């Protein structure tokens, strides 16, 4: 009887899958071919004919390998993105915003005098000071879910990304829909808002996320 495992391994070639997963698939396909071969032999076919008929079960091994890889990754991709990017990112954003809300309720409202460098607002500084923790939380959760470095970085910077998107749409609506006079007359003021609410928090978030951007040793092995 042919060595079905060797035949399948050779013909299937490279599978874009984890080693254990690949081994199990080869084992399973080899079992199927062996059962098929035994059945053909039981029906009275010669060894060579039975082998030929078993191998004819797969017309194109490369296509089969591709289909298996796609099937294995289909749902995985969606789940993995949710676990390694959206969930950590949203937790990060929630933590950042809840902390700001708590500070606003307890210390006071952040005023925009900050941009004039007149007053260093305690609330803002306290919020900014906590951003490395939020960034670390997002990047840590992403790394724990097996996120790639890009996902970990995006999850760590998620609050800044979200605020940038919000400011972009506010600017678009203010400029082109509302024709807001303040924004039209003082575009620099409006642009400067991005610095304390997007750029500085992004830097703080990045500080917290940095330790989790390194590839863990367990993955390198």
């Amino acid at each position, binding site marked *: 009887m042919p060595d079905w495992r060797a035949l399948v391994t050779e013909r299937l070639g490279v599978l874009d899958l984890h080693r254990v997963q690949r081994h*199990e*698939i080869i*084992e*399973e*396909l080899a*079992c*199927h*071919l062996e*059962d*098929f071969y035994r*059945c053909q032999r039981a029906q009275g076919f010669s060894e060579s004919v039975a082998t030929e008929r078993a191998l004819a*079960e*797969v*017309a*194109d091994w490369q*296509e*089969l390998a591709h*289909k*298996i890889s*796609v*099937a*294995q990754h*289909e*749902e*995985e991709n969606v789940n993995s993105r949710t676990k390694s990017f959206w969930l950590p990112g949203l937790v990060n954003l929630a933590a950042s915003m809840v902390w700001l809300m708590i500070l606003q309720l307890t210390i006071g409202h952040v005023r925009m005098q900050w941009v004039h460098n007149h007053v260093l607002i305690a609330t803002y500084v306290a919020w900014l000071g906590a951003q490395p923790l939020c960034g670390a939380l997002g990047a840590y959760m992403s790394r724990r879910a097996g996120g790639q470095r890009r996902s970990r970085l995006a999850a760590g910077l998620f609050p800044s990304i979200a605020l940038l998107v919000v400011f972009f749409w506010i600017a678009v609506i203010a400029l082109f829909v509302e024709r807001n006079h303040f924004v039209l007359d003082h575009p620099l003021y409006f642009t400067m808002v991005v610095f304390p609410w997007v750029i500085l928090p992004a830097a703080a978030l990045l500080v917290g996320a940095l330790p989790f951007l390194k590839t863990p040793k367990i993955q390198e092995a």
Partner: protein
Amino acid sequence: MIGSGIKRGTAELAILSVLEESPLHGYEMARRIEQQTKGALRFTLAALYPMLYRMEQRGWIRGAWETSSNGRRRRCYRITSVGKKKLSPLRKEWGELFDALRLLTKVTHA
């Protein structure tokens, strides 16, 4: 020529239907489908396994390695509760489609 969507739909229905009866490994599943449809539906290895893996990823079926009495290890598939929920609307949809096609072919042959 039957479209890939229709082929996939019928394949999913066939697999879920036989697994509803009992857990099966891949080869036995293909044989059972062929026998029960009197040879009208036949799954080759190349058609069956990508479909099984896709359905497993979706949570409709679950595969687990089991050792049979003769000591051979095989991956045995079972239908999950998600798969059972999927099966009844699939049956309904395909029943309606076949009824519609039956009506249509009667009209055109008249």
